[in-house]
């Protein structure tokens, strides 16, 4: 049984609301950068960039964009007995010193992914600030981490899956 949390319209509305809030807080395009966490966060980050581009009337490519993979910074690699997770690209093609970073992920749960992502940033430099935006906050944090921008809160211990047009053909968030 699949329980829908966000359908296609609600999904896109949620992203639009996140983008509006991010833009309201970060007016100066050259001061901030959007970084998506591999892999779904990357797609969401690209969508948010295109929303912000519309709001601010700058071109999408003028907004700094990066991708970040946390695999090498995971604290649970010993638990993978068969099959190590695939290492994906971390590409930060700009100097992040003194930038405000908006980190994008699909689901916020224990907070461990975000903690690992913060560790990755320290290897690249010292951003001015890092803010977190997520599509879904499913609660049950194990670390003191909160998102500044949240699409929807849905507290559950069940696995939440985020489908997006780019890979799954439709936008949808559901409990599986």
């Amino acid at each position, binding site marked *: 049984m699949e329980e829908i949390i966000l359908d296609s319209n609600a999904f896109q509305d949620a992203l639009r609301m996140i983008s509006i809030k991010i833009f309201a807080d970060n007016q100066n395009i050259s001061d901030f950068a959007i970084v998506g966490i591999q892999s779904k966060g990357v797609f969401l980050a690209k969508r948010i960039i295109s929303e912000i581009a519309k709001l601010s009337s700058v071109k999408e490519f003028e907004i700094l964009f990066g991708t970040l*993979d946390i*695999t*090498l*910074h*995971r604290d649970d*690699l*010993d638990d*993978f*007995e*068969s*099959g*190590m*997770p*695939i*290492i*994906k*690209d*971390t*590409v930060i093609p700009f100097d992040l010193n003194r930038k405000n970073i908006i980190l994008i992920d699909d689901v916020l749960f224990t907070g461990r992914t975000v903690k690992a992502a913060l*560790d990755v940033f*320290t*290897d*690249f*430099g010292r951003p001015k600030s890092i803010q977190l935006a997520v599509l879904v906050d499913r609660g049950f944090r194990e670390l003191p981490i909160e998102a500044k921008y949240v699409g929807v809160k849905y507290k559950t211990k069940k696995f939440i899956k985020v489908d997006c047009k780019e890979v799954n053909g439709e936008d949808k968030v559901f409990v599986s």
Partner: protein
Amino acid sequence: MSLNCKDLLGLEYLDKKDLQTILNAVKPLKSLFTRSVKKVPTLIGKTVVTLFYEPSTRTRNSFEIAAKRLSADVVNIVTNTSSVVKGESLIDTGKTLEAMKADYIIIRHSLAGAPNILARNLNASVINAGDGFHEHPTQGLLDLYTIYDKKKKIEGLKVLLVGDIVHSRVAKSNIWALTKMGAEVAVSGPPTLIPENIKDLGVKIYYDLDEAVKKADVVNILRIQLERQQENLFPSVHEYVELYQLTKERLNKAKPGVLIMHPGPMNRGIEISSEVADSPNAVINEEVTNGIAVRMAVLYLLKKRKNASSN
């Protein structure tokens, strides 16, 4: 994604899928080298021991850098100052290292199969860093990756190995990896240094280097060990140079984009001329950089036995 084995003993034992898994993991690891902080915490708390019964600088250092960039602790055992000279057996040395909670043992040994013996008797992951004339799998992998990175494919490429094939573990590992990935491999060198049965691995033999070079997309030149001349395997260094040195003139006969490789250390003026070694076609220094990333990929991907250090 993972290798379904705890040890890396030779490329003979890997299949195409395993090789592709390793190739895919190298690029993101290599991208770490351009950061100001090149180290990640992936293997924090793990212990890597290098156990070299033969001299080596680049392989051992490359493994050490690879392990350190993944935050493992590295211990180097130099066998001529260790209990080995007091007559300790290989298995006992391995057990001792395991009792010290080694998670990975990287071994170089003059006897083919020595890493296999260690692997059978230990829970730690054993990585072969060269055993006799048998294999040098991480060198084979870094050659494979260097070709893949430059040519964007392996399948269908014509790769020529030049020099002492019979004594070369690098050649064996290259042949296994390249043929599994669909390349056409040929060898060239004096008949005394090429085993006739190499044909059984699907390899072509050219005794005429000029002929062989014309068709190649990649030429990998192996080091000539000068002590082989004392064994009368080739009449003189001068004759070897005449017939088998990769010179500018020979390079001119090759395809324009031909890739020139050498596993090092090079004997400039013997198997390769200085001009060729420094030509834009040569990727010899990149092989060294890639070697670190490839060894990181191997350390990352080997299946951990639950759990070598914590039991």
